[in-house]
């Protein structure tokens, strides 16, 4: 593996390899006094975030540091980007500065692919940490790790992705990965928040959340991305919440074993009721915890082994 740009690039074997590595890392680090492995000593990982983020950036930084890599954070507001430097020039600067891996988040879809194209020659790995409304593969991996922890093998598991599919890179990456892993995925969203061309995702799209609740192993809620919305996608937050919010009444209709996920940051009272968010059947803090191990596993698979001969 050279880059991690799209969840769709992962074969089932590659995805399961990363998830198994993540499980082992989690068990290895459990209860240890020294949470540090020497595996990536001397490798330099640069995170380059053109969009705000708490959990993803911190999670990558912790993951890199626990593997003993040197992690350097670049944010667009505090770098030459704010002076008008292009993405390509920034990339070449990072390469010249000695990066082994660049982790990038960018508001433009496809930015990570462009970056990988420029950096491949220098032998630098690129990880897509979210590009616009396109993809966020490590989020899909940590969601899968969390689901596997609660539900076991995901083959045939019925998983609904609910909410703002249109603006969500998490949804796309999750659909790609969960399908590769053999899960039975469906999308549930208001018609205005379903992207054009969704039929190519090859998963059913529904509009009535209540009709599906009793038949699910997991519900994955998405944040309503107001910052990407210019115009009326739904009449009001209250109306959205009434139709698609996971309130306590809906929560009670889910099967006993069903898991609730949310990639965060969550809007309590909008997509999810506060009591549901804090229920032990909701795995939101597990997702963050697993995020570190999954990202350690991704860095391990990208950086630890011998470089693949192209």
């Amino acid at each position, binding site marked *: *593996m050279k880059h991690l740009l799209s969840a769709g690039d992962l074969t089932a074997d590659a995805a399961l*390899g990363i998830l*198994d*590595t993540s499980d*082992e*890392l989690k*068990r*290895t680090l459990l209860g*240890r*006094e*020294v949470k*540090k*492995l*020497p*595996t990536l000593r001397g490798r330099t990982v640069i995170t380059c975030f053109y969009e705000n983020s708490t959990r993803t950036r911190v999670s990558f930084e912790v993951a890199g540091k626990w593997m003993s890599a040197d992690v350097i954070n670049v944010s667009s507001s505090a770098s030459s980007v704010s002076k008008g430097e292009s993405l390509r020039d920034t990339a070449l600067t990072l390469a010249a500065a000695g990066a082994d891996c660049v982790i990038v988040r960018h508001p433009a879809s496809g930015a990570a692919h462009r970056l990988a194209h420029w950096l491949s020659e220098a032998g630098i790995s690129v990880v897509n940490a979210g590009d616009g409304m396109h993809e966020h593969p490590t989020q899909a991996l940590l969601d899968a790790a969390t689901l596997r922890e609660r539900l076991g093998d995901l083959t045939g598991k019925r998983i609904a992705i609910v909410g703002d599919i249109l603006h969500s890179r998490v949804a796309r990456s999750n659909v790609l990965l969960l399908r590769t892993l053999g899960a039975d995925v469906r999308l549930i969203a208001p018609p205005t928040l379903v992207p054009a061309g969704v039929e190519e995702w090859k998963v059913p799209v529904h509009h009535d959340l209540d009709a599906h609740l009793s038949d699910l192993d997991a519900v994955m809620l998405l944040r309503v991305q107001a910052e990407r919305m210019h115009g009326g996608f739904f009449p009001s937050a209250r109306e959205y919440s009434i139709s698609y919010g996971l309130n306590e009444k809906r929560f009670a209709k889910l099967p006993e074993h069903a898991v609730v996920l949310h990639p965060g940051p969550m809007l309590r009272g909008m997509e999810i009721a506060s009591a549901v968010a804090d229920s032990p059947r909701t795995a939101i803090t597990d997702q963050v915890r697993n995020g570190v191990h999954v990202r350690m596993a991704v860095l*391990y*698979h990208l950086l*630890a*082994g*011998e470089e*693949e001969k192209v």
Partner: protein
Amino acid sequence: MTPRESVGAADAADERTLLSAADVARTIARMAHQVIEKTAVEPGEAPVQVTLLGIPTRGVPLARRLADKIREFSGAEVPVGTLDITLYRDDLRRRPNRPLESTELPPGGIENCLVILVDDVLFSGRTIRAALDALRDLGRPSAVQLAVLVDRGHRQLPIRADYVGKNVPTARQEDIAVELSERDGRDAVVLRRAGA
């Protein structure tokens, strides 16, 4: 292919069985006796907790068998754990990526224990160096010893085993395969010539 002269009990032209299943059982039993003898404490001395840590893959079943024999001979219950050293290897960058094995310490941990690392073959010593590094991150044993089923020589580091099942002089290009019924369906130690 040119036929080669067979040496010892040849099962194939390029393969020689060094230990049969019965030999493997006897060797492990002898090693268990040696562990009991060497870790015994003088009357009045504080007892030490002996803990076996098997190094995956074949060190793990070996450690379990050793613990069973020690229990059988002395009645002492010896905790067994596993210690994966993949993340501590010094040759990670020279090989394709490898999957991780599990590291599981016994419930009591290894703090102040006498840890005996168990592996199938001692060769360059690099695995053991990695294991010592891994141990340092997991706790502070009172002492660390090493038990191996086969010592084939060619050390690249100043490392020596405390318990050796069988010393086998080998050429560098030869290959020693330890087979254990838990993984391979039979017990045997086989020497293979290069290219076999």
